Structure formats: C-alpha cells, structure tokens
C-alpha cells in the first residue's frame, strides 16, 4: 500500500470518530472536497446550506445519513485559516481586517437571512479560511442551528469559550446577534494579535465597531450583519450602493419577497398630515424569500470645519508627545512608533477614514546626507515604525491634511547608542472640529431623508409582507454615523393597526436605527411614524401605507 493510500485509509478511520475529514481528489490528485461526519441534528442546517452558492461559504455537495450520523461532502477550501495567520504573522493591519470582516459579514448575512435564520455560533479564527483567491470563507457549521421563534433558550450550548456570546451560556436563546458578538471578538484578536479580554481597547478605527459588537446585552449590539457592514463601510470608504441595487431588483427581477409603500406624510412636525406624495407607477411584483432592505442614500448634510493649528500656531501639540518634549542630544532613540489618533470630537471623523487626511513622514535621512528614506512608507496613518540602526543625528518631516487643510513640520532627533530602544507615544491631543447639521425644515426637505422606496412606491399596487427599514444617515464630510450617535435616532415608536385588527405586539422595536422588521400578516391600512435627532435637533414624520392581499 502506498503512503498516500495509507493516509487515505487513516483519514477514513478518523472520519468515523469525527477527528479528521476524508479528502476527495480529482484526476490530477488535487483535493476537491472533504467528507466529514456530523450530528444528525444538523440535517435542517445542512439542507439549507446546500441551497447556497457563495464565494464566502463552502458548497455542500452531498448529505447522507450513515449509522446514526450525517456524512457531509463539502467543497475543500484551499488556503490558510485566520488562526494560522494569527499564529504565524501576529496582528494584521486595518486594511486586512476590514477585508476579512466584510467577507465574514457577507457570509453571516446570507446565513442569517434564511428563513428560519441559521446561526453559526462558532465564529472564530479557526473557522475562517483565507482562500488563495483572496476571499475569506466561513466554514464549519457543526455548532450551527436554526433560530426558532418559539424556544426561549438554546437547549445545547455549543461554541468556543472566549468567542461564544453570553447568551450561548444559557442566558437566552441565541440569535443572529450571538454571531455578531463572536465576530467582534474575532476582529479584536485579528487586529491586535492577542485574545480579547473584557473591556480591552483596540487600536485604530475598528475600536467602535468592536465595542458595539461585543456588548454583553444582545440588544445593544448591531442587530444584523448588514448593519455591522454598513458601519464598517464607513471605515472601508466603500460606497453603499446596495440599497439602490436592491430597490432596482424589486422591479426588474422577480426575486422580491416584500415591497411596501407609503402615501401620506406629516405636513407639520409632531402631527399627522395628509399631503400625499405623488404616486408613480411601478411594475407588479412577486413574492420571494428575502426581505427588502430599504434605505435612503441621502445623508443629512453636515458641515465640518477643522481647526487650523497653523492659524493658532499650535501644530506641535498634535505631534507625538515625546517628539514635542524631546530635548536634542539627550534621548536615545532606536525605534519610533507613530500611531496618531486623530479623532475629531463631535464629527466622529477619524483620521483613518479620510483619504484627504494623512500623516506621514516624507523625509528621513541622517543629517547632512541624502541616505535613508527606504524605511518610511507613506502610510503612517495606520501606524508606522521607524527603526534607526546607527547612532547619529536624524531629521524627520511630516505633513498632515484634512479636507485640504493641513500643516507640516520638521524635527531633529539624536540617536546616541544602540542600547535600549525607545518608542514614541502618540499625542493625546485631538484636532478640534466643529460640525453643523442641516436642519430640514419643510416637509419636502424631510422626505429626502426617508428611505427612497417609501417615497416612490405607489398606493394600491404594492404588496407588503415584511418591512425592513435600515436608514443610512451619514452626515457628509463628518462621517458621523447614525448608529454611533446616541443623540441621533430614527425610530418607529408607534404602530397603529387598522380598526378592528389586533395590534401586532412586539413586532416593532423602539430602536429601528439598528434595523427592524415589521411583519404584517393581514392586508389593510397602516400608520407608522418615526423621529430622528442629531445633537438635539430633529424632526418627526408620519406615514400611511397599504398592505394588499398576496397574489
């Protein structure tokens, strides 16, 4: 028996005790699939997974029962796990983490949007594979389960200690937000290169997202993968065209599950109005599986003005403190670690999110020479380390910009010996920035910030079964995100069923900002209203919409 045959026989044996999978090969001996043995209770999960084809999930090729267990044949994902990358390379930079996060959220979104939703429940570095094609794939559904609306708590606690959400320990039934929790823990470890501990702070622009994901109370986390993705999009600077695509899809493709529409809006704040928005015809739609996500792409405008340090002759306060306090000739410097937080309070505009805002060392060389320079890259925004190997006198120049406003400076430092290295701490100073939010006064102005399809869909022709509202409320320039601002809320806090119908209790949460669904089971006329605020300013509007009979 060849060694390869012996190996395959060993794998078959291991598969029986679920210790290792069996590998499948093509004619050219490349691995194409794996066969693994899992619990029979996973039948519903794998039956649903089999329907999914996505670059971020493995394809399920076959499911069969054998001796009281399930044998799953699954696409083999060639690549390296995030665990491997963490162990071998340590912490990853923001760009890598964001790329991974987006793919993981895409996978979670697919799973969570099934009916019933599939909760993975074991999101951890071991279960994410960086494929050779650069995509990240979520694998291993052995802890997964379908979310049941009825069950109060999970009967079986699975998952991995350190990554599992509190509710996985029996506090409540796990839903999509348990995966969001583990996702946050994973992001932290990936960015910092060490396991998450309670209350740990994370460097850089991911801090806020990680904090939100890892809230003890599930209700305080992002409500869905899509919502976390929107928050992440602000960092990744990706334009969110998803909404338009979805709305277009409702008309063009027969792949719609839900559509809704609105007719009336308030003519004055805080009271119901009757001035209807002009209806426009739309094509008939057919019922489908996915809820429709409706958002306005229009952010409430906000103007930000960054304090110009040059005008106040205060540029130096934004330098790393040790450079500022540095006394030439007295400091031994071997290593500089530049990692400057530049968060503008009020605006929430973060240095890392702004392409126009950069901080870099544009020149580095021993004084009096033209040597050096290769150790400094332009991207010091996400942290850069300068290692100085030889004693001598050096000069560093930097430049920082924000929306065209900026300043620069030159600093000299002496490296005396090759003894202890010294790291420069970041400056604690924050560049102040003033933001003013536009206050929409007229009803016409207010409708601009409504989900587009609420305005555009005509009365009487649209079927509504599920309504998922996910308003995007970016303040342009400020990058102030609705989800991050406690003073800024968008909520449906009242829902009035048609006369004679029972109120659909519990279907509308107060916090629609985090994404909410209204499931409407009976045709009829409905009212809904919302309130939005930002730094104390805000407005309300009420709407009427109809739910027709299903075809």
């Amino acid at each position, binding site marked *: 028996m060849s060694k390869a045959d*012996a*190996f395959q026989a*060993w794998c078959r044996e291991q598969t029986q005790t679920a210790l*290792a999978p069996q590998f499948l090969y093509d004619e050219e001996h490349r691995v194409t699939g794996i066969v693994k043995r899992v619990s029979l209770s996973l039948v519903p999960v794998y039956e649903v997974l089999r329907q999914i084809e996505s670059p971020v999930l493995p394809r399920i090729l076959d499911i069969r029962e054998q001796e009281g267990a399930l044998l799953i044949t699954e696409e083999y994902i060639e690549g390296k*796990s995030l665990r491997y990358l963490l162990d071998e390379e340590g912490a990853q930079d923001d760009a890598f983490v964001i790329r991974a996060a987006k793919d993981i959220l895409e996978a979670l979104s697919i799973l969570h949007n099934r009916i019933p939703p599939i909760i993975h429940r074991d999101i951890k570095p*071991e279960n994410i594979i960086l494929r050779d094609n650069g995509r990240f794939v979520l694998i291993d559904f052995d802890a997964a389960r379908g979310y049941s609306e009825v069950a109060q708590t999970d009967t079986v606690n699975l998952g991995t200690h350190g990554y599992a959400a509190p509710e996985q320990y029996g506090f409540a039934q796990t839903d999509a937000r348990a995966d969001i929790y583990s996702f946050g823990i994973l992001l932290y470890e990936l960015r910092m290169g060490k396991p998450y501990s309670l209350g740990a702070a994370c460097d850089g622009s991911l801090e806020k997202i990680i904090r939100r994901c890892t809230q003890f109370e599930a209700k305080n986390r992002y409500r869905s993968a899509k919502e976390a993705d929107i928050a992440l999009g602000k960092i990744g600077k990706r334009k969110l065209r998803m909404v338009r695509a979805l709305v277009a899809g409702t008309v063009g493709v027969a792949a719609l599950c839900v559509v809704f529409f609105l007719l009336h809006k308030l003519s004055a704040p805080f009271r119901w109005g009757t001035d209807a928005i002009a209806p426009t015809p739309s094509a008939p739609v057919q019922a489908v599986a996915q809820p429709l996500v409706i958002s306005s792409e229009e952010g409430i405008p906000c103007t930000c003005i960054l304090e110009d340090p040059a005008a106040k002759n205060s540029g130096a306060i934004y330098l790393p403190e040790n450079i500022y306090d540095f006394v030439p000739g007295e400091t031994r410097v071997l290593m500089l670690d530049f990692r400057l937080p530049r968060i503008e309070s009020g605006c929430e505009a973060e240095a890392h999110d702004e392409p126009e805002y950069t901080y870099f060392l544009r020149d580095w060389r021993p004084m009096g020479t033209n040597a050096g320079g290769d150790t400094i890259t332009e991207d010091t925004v996400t942290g850069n380390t300068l290692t100085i190997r030889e004693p001598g006198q050096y000069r560093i120049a930097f430049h920082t910009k924000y929306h065209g406003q900026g300043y620069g400076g030159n600093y000299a430092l002496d490296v005396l010996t090759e003894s202890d290295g010294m790291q420069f701490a970041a400056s604690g100073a924050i560049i102040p920035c003033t933001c003013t939010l536009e206050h929409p006064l007229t009803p016409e102005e207010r409708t601009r910030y409504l989900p587009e399809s609420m305005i555009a869909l005509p009365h009487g022709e649209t079927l509504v079964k599920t309504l998922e509202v996910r308003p995007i409320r970016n303040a342009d320039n400020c990058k102030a995100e609705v989800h991050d601002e406690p003073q800024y809320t968008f909520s449906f806090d009242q829902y009035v069923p048609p006369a004679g119908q029972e109120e659909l209790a519990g279907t509308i949460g107060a916090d629609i900002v985090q994404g909410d669904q209204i499931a409407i089971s009976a045709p009829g006329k409905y009212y809904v209203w919302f309130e939005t605020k930002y730094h104390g300013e805000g407005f309300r509007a009420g709407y009427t919409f109809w739910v027709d009979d299903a075809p």
Partner: protein
Amino acid sequence: MRTGTVELLNKLQNASDLAAFFEEYREELITETVGGYLTAIMDRSGIKAATLAETAQLGNYVYRVINDERNASRDTLLSIALALRLTVAETQMLLRIGRHAMLDPRFHRDAALLFALSDGYDVVKANELLDEIGEATL
C-alpha cells in the same frame, strides 16, 4: 508555582483533554522555550543533538534551535518532531511554544503530517508522503 519541563511532559502524556491541558498550564507553556522543551525530550529519550541534526535533515541548524539562538520555522519544528518521534500532543505543544500554528486536520497538508506523526514516520517518509499527495515537502 512553575512546573518543570519533565513533569509537564508527564502531565501532557496523561492528559485526556489537550485543550484543558493547555489552559491549565498556559503560563508554564508561554515561559517555556523551544530549546528547553527539546532538550528535556532529548534527555528523556537519550537522543543526542548530533543524531537529531542528521535525522531531522537540518545539519548544524539544529544546534542553534536547541540553544534558542534561532526562531525555528513551523516546518523546521515539524521535521524535528518527526525525527524525535514525538506524539501528536507533544508536537502540538512544540508548535505552540515556538509560537506557530498547531496542526489542523481540516487542512490536507496538516492532516498528512498528523498521520505521519501518528504512524511513526521519519522525515524522509513524511516527505515522500507529502510529495505523493501533491503537498509541499518539509
């Protein structure tokens, strides 16, 4: 209190749950060095460094690893593990001490190496297997 390497190895041999073992002795494992760990194993099994240098096909590099003068790569440690006929648990611990990713049977190459370790393959045989199944040799 710190647990000695040999004692730790004995505990590892008797441990039924590898994960629990790693958790319990996390502190000791982190402070352990690759050189110290390998020396303890070689003392226990009576293998000389010169023999290891030859069987692991690493030449004099082995001395540097044993003396903690070099951070050995994952494949180097796997070669040493095969040459020393380490168990799977001992190999996983060696990788962990060396701050490398442990073997994961869900990956084809790692699965083959786990098989090679459990079947007592030496470096030559393990490389033949890796070559046969289209994976990079050590």
